[in-house]
């Protein structure tokens, strides 16, 4: 008899606990769904580089992003040093990963170097390419035709055999946004990255010769 009563009481306690937990549901919010963001990525439009057995191996380090640039939001620079992100749009991955992949593809396509990106830690490399992204942001104007995007990147080419800094240049581009909306902005980012890639590819073609491994 006593055991029966005890079992009933336990069941009643479990039921009451379940009720209380269920009652707390409205108190915990994980945010409303709202309209879905448009997700974009950087697209390198060039030719992917072929295997180059005689070229130097260069390890592309993960880029260091300036404050406010890292993340998956599209960074917006407003007047008065105000910084925010674009509503309704975002990057498909962390911007640093997108930039790293873009640079790896661009330099691999325009030079005879073997560019090693993510997952290349076990490969013996002649140089390490460090990237500091100073600007990768949308700058709205007074009217839509004045909107621009700014891209600025600083490269550090380090020879690993003697840890010597071979070169340390900065490349920047500003491109007008041709069309409205998120697509137009991302297209401008692609254009700016392509223009910058042309500049740093020329630089890398010359400097990477010092990374030749014997």
């Amino acid at each position, binding site marked *: 008899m006593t055991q029966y009563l005890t079992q009933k009481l336990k069941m009643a306690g479990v039921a009451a606990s379940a009720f209380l937990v269920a009652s707390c549901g409205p108190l915990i919010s994980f*945010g*409303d769904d*709202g309209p879905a963001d448009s997700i974009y990525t950087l697209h390198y439009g060039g030719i992917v580089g072929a295997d180059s057995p005689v070229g130097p191996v260069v*390890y592309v*380090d*993960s880029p*260091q992003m300036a404050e406010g640039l890292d993340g998956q939001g599209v960074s*917006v620079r*407003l007047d008065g040093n*105000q910084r*925010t*992100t*674009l*509503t*309704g749009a975002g990057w498909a991955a962390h911007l640093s990963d997108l930039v790293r992949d873009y640079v790896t593809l661009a330099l691999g396509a325009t030079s005879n170097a073997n560019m090693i990106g993510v997952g290349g*830690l*076990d*490969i*013996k*490399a002649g140089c*390490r390419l460090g990237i500091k992204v100073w600007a990768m942001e*949308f700058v*709205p104007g007074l009217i*839509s035709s004045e909107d621009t995007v700014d891209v600025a990147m600083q490269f550090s080419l380090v020879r*690993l*055999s003697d840890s010597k800094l071979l070169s340390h240049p900065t490349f920047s581009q500003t491109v007008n946004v041709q069309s*409205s*909306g*998120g697509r137009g*902005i991302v297209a401008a980012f692609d254009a700016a990255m392509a223009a910058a890639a042309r500049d740093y590819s020329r630089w890398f073609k010359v400097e990477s010769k010092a990374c030749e491994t014997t």
Partner: protein
Amino acid sequence: METRASHILVGSFVLAFLAGLIAFAVWISKVDLDAEYTDYDIYFDGSVSGLYKRSIVYYSGIPVGDVRDITLAPHDAQKVRVWVRLRAEVPVTEGAEAKLEFQGLTGVAYIELKGGPPGGAAIVAKEGDDRAIIPSGTSAFQAVFEGAPDLINQAIVAIVQIQKLLSDENIQSISSTLKNADQLSGNLARGTDDIEVIVAEARQVLANATTAADNISKLAASGNALVEKDGERLVNEAVATMQAATDMIKRIDGLVAANEGGITQFVGGSLPEVSRMIVDLRSTAQSLSRLMKRIEQNPAKIIFGTKEAKFDLETRSTKDGEK
């Protein structure tokens, strides 16, 4: 009836009275009727002021005669001749000397004789001299009186020099010097404690040095004992250790030779990769550190995101963005 006097008796009585009176006078005047005297002349240079006839002549402090006459020397007016009469038993021999002395501050002079060496010949009168001549000397008083004028002059000169020395400027200098000396002595007195401390510290240092020297001596002695007794054992152990180390190096050398390819690959290839991995790990650690700080400051911001004013392309303005 008329009293008849005895003239013989009266006459005898008067004569006896007179004889007694004379004897009494002689006794009273201490006249030495049997005494014999010798006269001398003494020639003094300069003044004999204070000396008169009947002045006493002393011999070693004993009155032995007197001055009979004082006159200028017959052949030299610069000198004074004093005629004295001395008792005959006074030993006036060769070497004797007469000095003019004075009694206290009364100015009364007397003559003091100092005898010659014992056994000397008596002074006798020479031919042409009335009496024997006792040589004279200069007494202390005479020297003082004779030298007094020079002494006074010198004293005056000294006083002038002292006055020059004690000029206001020199007094000021002396005062300054004394003040400095006083200050110096004060500083010395105040610094006595420090000096005592320094001396105590120096003593302590010396004691420590002595102790250290003793310890070094003991250490040297023990070192000698160590070398003599335990040295051989230590050398043997060292030799054994070196042999073991040599064997180990040989084994390592063989191991390296057997795996030269792998080791070369590790050194040439893996080390730079490890270096790159360390760079990546450092970056990851930095990101984690930043994340942890943000979680510590505002955990809700990490979970639910930052409430910020996003830029709307349609309105071309920012609004409180909420997903």
